[in-house]
């Protein structure tokens, strides 16, 4: 004769050594507590599916904070309510691991209400076991979000009142309204029938994860004889009489059969692929530039200002990139913070032959104004003997100061003549470099094709630069 032995499942540790020096064979749970039954059911399922080695149990805050004493799996303890977020991090890192978030009602339905909803809504391929015993056990019997109306706890000593605390929250029903979850069921631990139901549900919730079907959620109505201050046997009856009428024991959603398995491709990427993706493979050697060019380069503190859409920020970026390409030090910073005045968009650009300190050009020696308000805002800040470039297509006044150099150029009209008003900024850069001769304007031709995202506009922008150069040659030759 043979016998089948029903005993402590293998996914439990033989001895619960993390528990301390004594009582290494029993749990820390009170007599009649439902956690032990659930641990048994989970370990049995993990062993049966042969996934205990791949499994990671997330212990919450609550009585099951010490769940890691028991499961012979990977174990992690999470902050109160955050188990689904922690589980998300674990699962996304190692998609082949089997991640089980084990949570109580305070953890899941109160402090962690958002984490559970959002993990469910993302359809994380994980299994959540929600132990609902309508009370905070660990902290001494306080009211839970699932505490029943009228139920007395240490923080609802006169019974839960609707006017003060509202109604008990039905998490399974809420989660089942979401599109992503694959399986949502509520079970109970009150008798042979409901325990078997719980076994089936937990198996399915784990199997779904193994099959990469997505988010599965099992809520279990479980006894807390100590918190409820009644016997274990009466606790089960109390669940039947009081909890089950309010928290119906049933499946709320099960689309396990309809869902495709979600395979995640995992592979290593070569350095070349990484550089390609990051746009770094085009970087190469330093350009050869005469030492005298660097030595003699006068620091340019530029402010480029105008309406949004006039390309003031991109003009700054192109100018900075161009100077960088000539081995100069550069910074670019957009109008930001208290510096922003008068409703203008602007950027500060510094080009220098030495290390740049502050990137802000409070007192520019080059001011480019694409519109009137910009001239009003920044004219007074320009250093004496500085340069101001005025877009006369839009700015209808002359510069008031007589201690600065001024170029009056119809930037927008020139650009319009090329059929691309937005290229006024490039007309300006061509003019600026041709007038100052600080950098050969042709250097811009190396940068513009890289800097402009719309490749069909590159040619027009290059023409705009040449038009700027031409305007200077015709009107401001020195």
């Amino acid at each position, binding site marked *: *004769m*043979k*016998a*089948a*032995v*029903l*005993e*402590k*499942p*293998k996914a*439990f540790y033989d001895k619960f050594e993390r528990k301390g020096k004594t*009582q290494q*064979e*029993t*749990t820390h*749970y*009170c*007599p*009649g*507590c*439902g*956690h*032990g*039954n659930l*641990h*048994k*059911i989970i*370990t*049995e399922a993990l*062993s*049966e599916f042969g996934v205990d080695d791949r499994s990671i149990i997330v212990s919450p805050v609550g009585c099951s904070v010490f769940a890691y004493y*028991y499961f012979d799996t990977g174990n992690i303890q999470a902050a109160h309510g955050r188990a689904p977020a922690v589980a998300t991090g674990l699962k996304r890192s190692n998609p082949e691991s089997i991640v089980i978030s084990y949570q109580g009602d305070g953890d899941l339905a109160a402090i962690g209400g958002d984490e559970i909803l959002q993990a469910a809504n993302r359809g994380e391929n994980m299994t959540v076991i929600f132990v609902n015993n309508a009370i905070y056990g660990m902290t001494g019997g306080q009211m839970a979000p699932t505490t029943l109306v009228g139920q007395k706890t240490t923080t609802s000593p006169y019974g839960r009142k609707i006017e003060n605390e509202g109604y008990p929250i039905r998490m399974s029903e809420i989660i089942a309204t979401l599109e992503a979850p694959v399986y949502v069921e509520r079970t109970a631990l009150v*008798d*042979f029938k409901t*325990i*078997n139901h719980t*076994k089936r549900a937990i198996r399915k919730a784990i199997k779904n994860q193994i099959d990469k079907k997505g988010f599965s959620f099992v809520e279990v109505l479980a006894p807390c*004889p100590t918190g409820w201050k009644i*016997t*274990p*046997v009466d606790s*089960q009856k109390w669940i039947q009489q009081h909890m089950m009428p309010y928290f119906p024991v049933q499946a709320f959603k099960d689309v396990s059969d309809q869902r495709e398995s979600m395979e995640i491709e995992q592979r290593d990427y070569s350095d070349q692929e990484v550089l390609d993706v990051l746009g770094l493979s085009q970087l190469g050697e330093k350009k050869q530039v005469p030492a005298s060019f660097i030595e003699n380069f006068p620091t340019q503190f530029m402010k480029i200002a105008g309406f949004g859409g006039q390309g003031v920020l991109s003009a700054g970026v192109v100018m900075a990139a161009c100077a960088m390409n000539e081995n100069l030090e550069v910074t670019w910073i957009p109008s930001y913070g208290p510096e922003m005045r008068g409703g203008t968009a602007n950027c500060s650009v510094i080009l220098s032959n030495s290390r740049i300190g502050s990137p802000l050009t409070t007192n520019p020696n080059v001011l480019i104004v694409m519109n009137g308000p910009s001239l009003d805002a920044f004219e007074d800040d320009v250093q004496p003997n500085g340069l101001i470039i005025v877009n006369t297509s839009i700015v209808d006044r002359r510069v008031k100061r007589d201690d600065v150099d001024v170029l009056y150029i119809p930037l927008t009209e020139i650009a319009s003549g090329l059929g691309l008003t937005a290229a006024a900024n490039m007309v300006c850069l061509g003019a600026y470099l041709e007038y100052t001769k600080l950098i050969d304007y042709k250097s811009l031709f190396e940068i513009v094709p890289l800097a402009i995202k719309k490749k069909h506009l590159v040619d027009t922008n290059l023409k705009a630069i040449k038009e700027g150069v031409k305007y200077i040659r015709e009107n401001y030759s020195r």
Partner: protein
Amino acid sequence: MTEEYVEIDLSLPSMKVVSNLCKGCGLCIEHCPKDCIEFTDKFNELGYKYAKYSGEGCTGCGICFYACPEPGAIIVYKKVREKK
């Protein structure tokens, strides 16, 4: 179910309460369909009056195993017919 086939002596009981692991919650006694588990009058090492098999009537149904919250407090031996 964790099923493992082992040879056992037919005279062994069909279920066993590991007395020092029992917390005396009484759920196995409550749910045994054959009423063949009972409380002892003695206290175990944990300080609980523990449950024990009365010695007859167990059919190896396993209900007590799942009703018991303790991982290792109950072991059930279910007789299996030899395949012919």
